C-alpha cells in the first residue's frame, strides 16, 4: 500500500498520508468544508460523524461526512457539497 494518497479538493491536488480521512485533505486544501445556510464557513467539529459540519461532495455524492471517510486516490472532493 502506498504511504501517500493524492486526491483533488475543488480541483486542487492534495496529498495526505494513507489512512487519512477526507476531512484532513479538505482542511489542508480548502480550510473549510461547507457554507452554512446563512453563508458562514464551517469545518469539522466533532471528528466522529455526529455534527455533520464536515459535509462535502465526494465523487458526485453530496452530504458525505468527510471525517468518517478515508481518502482514496483520485477522489474528487467538492466543498460546499
Amino acid at each position, binding site marked *: 500500500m502506498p504511504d501517500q494518497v493524492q486526491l483533488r479538493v475543488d480541483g486542487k491536488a492534495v496529498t495526505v498520508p494513507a489512512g487519512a*480521512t477526507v476531512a484532513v485533505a479538505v482542511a489542508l486544501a480548502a480550510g473549510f468544508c461547507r457554507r452554512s445556510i446563512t453563508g*458562514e464557513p464551517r*469545518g469539522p467539529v466533532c*471528528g*466522529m*460523524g455526529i*455534527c*455533520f459540519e464536515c459535509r462535502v461532495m465526494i465523487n458526485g*455524492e453530496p452530504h458525505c461526512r468527510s*471525517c468518517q471517510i478515508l481518502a482514496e486516490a483520485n477522489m474528487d472532493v467538492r466543498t460546499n457539497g
Partner: protein
Amino acid sequence: MAETMRRNFDVLVVGAGPAGLAAATSAARVGAKVGVVDDNPAVGGQIWRGEVSKATSDASNWAAKLHSLGVEVICGAQIVHHDIASRVLFAETRFALLEIRFSKLILATGARERLLPFPGWTLPNVMAAGGLQAMVKSGLPISGKRVVVAGSGPLLLAVAAYLRAHGAKVLAICEQASWNSLASFASGLLSHPGKLRQALILQRQLLGIPFWTNSWPVRALGREALERIIISRNGTQREISCDYLACGFHLVPNVELASLLGCALEGGCVRVDDAQQTSVAGVFCAGEPTGIGGLELALIEGQIAGIAAAGKSERLRELRGRRRKAQQFARRLEKAFKLRPELKTLPDSGTIVCRCEDVTHARLARHSSWRDAKNQTRCGMGPCQGRICGPATQFLFDWDPGSVRPPLFPTRVESLASVSYIAPAEHSQLTGERQ
C-alpha cells in the same frame, strides 16, 4: 439502486468502542454467533481511535480477540431504522442497506462531547476537544500549531497530552470547574489506584502547560477561520492568539438508538438491570450510554452484557463487584465537573445555537420548550438532528429532549424505500420531517 445485504446473528453489538469490543468478545467466547456494526471507518471507538493497529495496546489486544473468535465486524455503517418486534435493525453504508437480524442486541453507542455555544464557536478550527484529537489521529498535521484546550472534564488533559506529544504548542488548558472541586476529585483518586497512576502519567506529560481552573472561552475571533480567543480566568479576560481551540464540556451519552427502541431512560441515561439489560427484553446496554464512567467501567459493563446476552452467567459475580467500584468513580466524575451556571450567559443574542439550521440564541429564547422551538425555528431539525444543539439547549434553557423518531440519521430515500418492515403508521413519521 443500492443493494440490500442481509445478516443474522445470535448477538448483535452496535458500537465497536471499548464496551462494544468487550461485549462482542465475551459473547463470542461462550459460543454465540456475534456481529458488530460501527459507524466509524475502523474499530476502537473514539478513545481507541487509531490504536487498534498498534502492536501492544489494550485496543489491539481486544481487537485481536475479536477477530480470533470469528466475530463479523461491519464498519462504516450507521443504524437508521429498526423493527424491534421482529428483531431487525437497518443500517446504511455509503453504498448499501444492511438488514441485520439478531436474537439479542447490545447497545454500546458511546458518548459525544457536550458543546456549548459562545460567540465565534462556529468558526472553522474551533473544534470539540476530542474532535481535534480525532482529526490529528486521522492525519491532520498539528506540529507547531498553537492550540488552546478548554471546557471541562478529564478528556481535556488526555487531549492536551496527545496534541503535545504530536508537536502542538498547547498554550493553556482552561477548565471551567473550580480548583476546590478538582482537588476533592483528585483526593478521591487515592481509592482508585489505576486512575491515580494514569493521572500521574498525565501530569508528567503535561508539565509546563498552564492549567487554569475557573476558566472558559467567552469569544472566538477570526474572519474565515479562528485567529484568537478571549478566555475568562477567575473573572479576568485575556486574549490569546491561536490556530485551534479544542473545546468540549465533558460528555453526553448517545442514547438516541436506545430511545428509539423504547428503552427507558433515567436522568438522561439508559436504565439497565444487574445484567445490563434495558427495559426492553433482549436489548442490553453497556458503557457510556448507561452513565458517563470512562474506559474501565465500559469494559466491565461490556463483558457483563456480552456474557448475559449469550445466556451465560460465569464470571458475572466477579464483574459486578468490579462494576460497583468503577461506578463510584463515575459518580465522583459527575460531581467534580458539574457545569457552572455562568456558562449559560456565554451566547449573545446573535450567537448561533443550532449549527445545522443557523438558529440564533435570540430566536430560541422566545420559546418555552424544545418542541416549540423545533416547530417554530427548525432548531434541531437539520442533519445532526439535535445531537449538538439538544444537549446545549438542555443546559441553556432547561429544555427536555423530545422523543426520537426514525430515521435515526439522514438516510437515502432508496434505503427507506427498501425498508419493508416499517408499519404503515411509521411511514408518516418518515416523510413528516424534511431530511
